[in-house]
């Protein structure tokens, strides 16, 4: 039996066992939406802005390791989605984005709602396709799902002209697909793994540095086993938090620009560094020349060869899928009689304890003004450390990363690479669809939240009881911090005048709003939000200290050990 292109799209999504599609209809996807209407195997989630559709699909994937799927119309539908696609691309999140396109014959004619989707999105997708013949449609979608999830994951976009959705052909969904030009490496190189093992055994001042790759490849179990076996200290990047339990003693906190003193000092001064699914990002390593001043051996495991020796030269590169490579390292370590160089390890831990003793995250909560750190700590306590936390971008994001101790992977959902304000609320929606019973909180600020505030309406429609923790300091806090520290206190355009009354705003959307401006009210408000208002969306507007800064801080371009600490440290 012959199916139309629109029917084929829906059948392919069903074949891929997709259960949620986030999207927004429009002219060029009308036939596809008509088929979506006629089926009930997957649920379509109607957002209020295409950017939110992509963020929601993205967070759906981040929190579950399923592929996020979204669907938008041509032209402005696509351009609105671009921020979301770029966000997913920077953090290697597997998505399939289906976009409508004007009819084939109109392409290039500056037709209504036409945009060069493949051209616009090319630099921010893993791959994209323009379907030119309905006969290619099923295979193209199969390739899209395959590419999105394998190798280094990423968003894959399929652009479908409207006429293709009406053309008919036989439907056959291939069970598997191979591409001669795409063969991601899975097993690590045996010789390199051997070298890595002997370096680990000889290390005097070892350090493990893990990143988002551990989360993406679901290899937290292996990472924990290896780290405990070796007894080495470990740090995890912003993208890697939760890969190793943050409450464990071997964890030194996050490294980098707002990393802990002990993590940065250990990164800088170790003699063997094991990098696991991390990419030596500028926010993590700081100045590479400064980092290179200390000689250390670096072992780098990554699925993507181009991540290796991109910013920092490494000694033992291992390209492969993390779970397999880590299993092999564990196997080889178990096979050797010699234990890691344990004579020097106590000295190294002593040194680390000294660094830890600086207590670099210390802050004081007085009786009058709420500090943001205090709110996050109370959030951690009230939720028992077991919530899914999404965030936007800025100071609140760093406070959340520093003070919410993630013990499990896929609980911390944030835009690390692109740093997209507006990510948090739609992300919280995506998480809630992936985990319908989970506790989900979005730690945000009054500036970020307004970048996708319209999604409060989506939350109402789908009854999503997300808790919004708005750390309201009236400023673009991180911008203000940089202006205070590096631009002579000239707060150019970082003060947000004329803020809405967030309580009334939340109520206008049909939710519960609370304003909290006294430290003593923080905990009761959180308890009420997660307790009696468990099933409501609660917008908690915390009026916080407008002068609070994030410390420690490594200024842009500075070395990792050149940290600025809070004044009273």
């Amino acid at each position, binding site marked *: 039996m012959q199916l139309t292109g629109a029917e084929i799209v829906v059948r392919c999504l069903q074949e891929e066992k997709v259960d949620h599609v986030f999207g927004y209809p429009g002219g060029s996807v009308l036939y596809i939406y008509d088929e979506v209407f006629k089926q009930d195997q997957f649920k379509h989630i109607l957002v209020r802005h295409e950017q939110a559709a992509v963020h929601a699909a993205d967070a759906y994937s981040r929190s579950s390791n399923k592929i996020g799927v979204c669907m938008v119309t041509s032209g402005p539908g696509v351009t609105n989605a671009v921020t979301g696609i770029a966000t997913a691309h920077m953090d290697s999140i597997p998505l399939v984005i289906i976009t409508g396109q004007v009819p084939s014959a109109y392409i290039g004619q500056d037709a209504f709602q036409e945009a060069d989707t*493949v*051209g616009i999105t*090319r*630099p921010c997708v*893993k*791959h994209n396709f*323009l379907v030119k013949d309905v006969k290619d449609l099923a295979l193209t979608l199969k390739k899209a799902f395959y*590419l999105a999830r394998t190798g280094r994951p990423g968003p894959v976009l399929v652009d479908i002209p409207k006429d293709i959705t009406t053309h008919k052909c036989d439907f056959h969904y291939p069970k598997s697909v191979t*591409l*001669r*030009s*795409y063969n991601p490496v899975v097993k690590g190189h045996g010789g390199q793994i051997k070298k890595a093992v002997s370096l680990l055994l000889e290390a005097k001042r070892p350090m493990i540095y893990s990143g988002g790759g551990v989360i993406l490849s679901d290899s937290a179990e292996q990472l924990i086993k290896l780290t405990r076996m070796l007894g080495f200290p470990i740090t995890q990047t912003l993208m890697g938090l939760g890969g190793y339990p943050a409450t464990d003693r071997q964890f030194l906190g996050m490294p980098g620009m707002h990393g802990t003193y002990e993590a940065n000092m250990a990164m800088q001064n170790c003699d063997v560094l094991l990098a696991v699914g991390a990419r030596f990002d500028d926010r993590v390593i700081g100045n590479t020349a400064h980092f290179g001043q200390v000689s250390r051996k670096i072992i780098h495991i990554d699925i*993507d*060869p*181009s991540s290796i*020796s*991109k910013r920092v*030269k490494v000694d033992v590169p291992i390209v492969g899928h993390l779970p397999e490579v880590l299993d092999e390292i564990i196997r080889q370590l178990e096979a050797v009689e010699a234990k890691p160089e344990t004579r020097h390890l106590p000295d190294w831990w002593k040194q680390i304890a000294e660094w830890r003793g600086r207590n670099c995250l210390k802050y004081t909560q007085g009786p009058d003004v709420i500090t943001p750190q205090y709110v996050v700590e109370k959030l951690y306590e009230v939720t028992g450390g077991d919530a899914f936390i999404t965030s936007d971008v800025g100071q609140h994001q760093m406070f959340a990363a520093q003070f919410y101790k993630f013990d499990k992977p896929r609980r911390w959902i944030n835009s690390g690479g692109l740093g997209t304000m507006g990510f948090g609320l739609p992300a919280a929606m995506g998480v809630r669809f992936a985990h319908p019973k989970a506790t989900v909180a979005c730690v945000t600020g009054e500036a970020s939240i307004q970048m996708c505030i319209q999604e409060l309406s989506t939350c109402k429609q789908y009854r999503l009881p997300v808790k919004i923790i708005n750390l309201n300091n009236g400023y673009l806090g991180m911008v203000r911090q940089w202006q205070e520290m590096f631009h002579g206190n000239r707060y150019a355009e970082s003060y947000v005048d004329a803020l809405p009354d967030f309580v009334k705003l939340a109520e206008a959307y049909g939710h519960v709003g609370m304003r909290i401006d006294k430290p003593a009210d923080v905990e009761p408000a959180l308890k009420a939000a997660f307790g009696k208002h468990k099933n409501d969306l609660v917008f908690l507007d915390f009026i916080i200290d407008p002068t609070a800064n994030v410390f420690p801080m490594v200024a842009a371009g500075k070395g990792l050990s050149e940290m600025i600490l809070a004044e009273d440290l």
Partner: protein
Amino acid sequence: MMRHIIAILIENESGALSRVSGLFSARGYNIESLTVAPTEDASLSRMTIVSVGSDDVIEQITKQLNKLIDVVKVVDLSEAAHIERELMLCKVRATGKDRDEMKRVADIFRGRIIDVTESSYVIELTGNGAKLDAFLQAIDSSLILETVRTGVCGIGRGDRILKV
């Protein structure tokens, strides 16, 4: 900073060229020349890119090229013995005493005159880039009316074969 000749086999799909050129511009890599045409297997195109960069940069370029989904194979030809050739068509003024001189220089460079008018020649010349440059320097620059060059295409010597 070394000059490298990178040969690429890439799926002959629409947009393949823009994926490669977009990669170079997005990541700030230098392109001296880029040539592309389908191979004997119509499903594949072969590209030759000449780029200048440190070893680290060239390593990143080859890795990033390999990462493109449509790219089947990448080889840095300049790593071993190879041949490079470029074609130039050069229209020159050929009048009076210059007419004989131009023919003589073209002969010396093993060029061929492929178009003749009363006042001009079109000279076809192949060779590596340096030879073409040398030719342009050997003739009076005021006589050059127009030049067009294909950019370098390259191939490995002997057993070095780039094929799927």
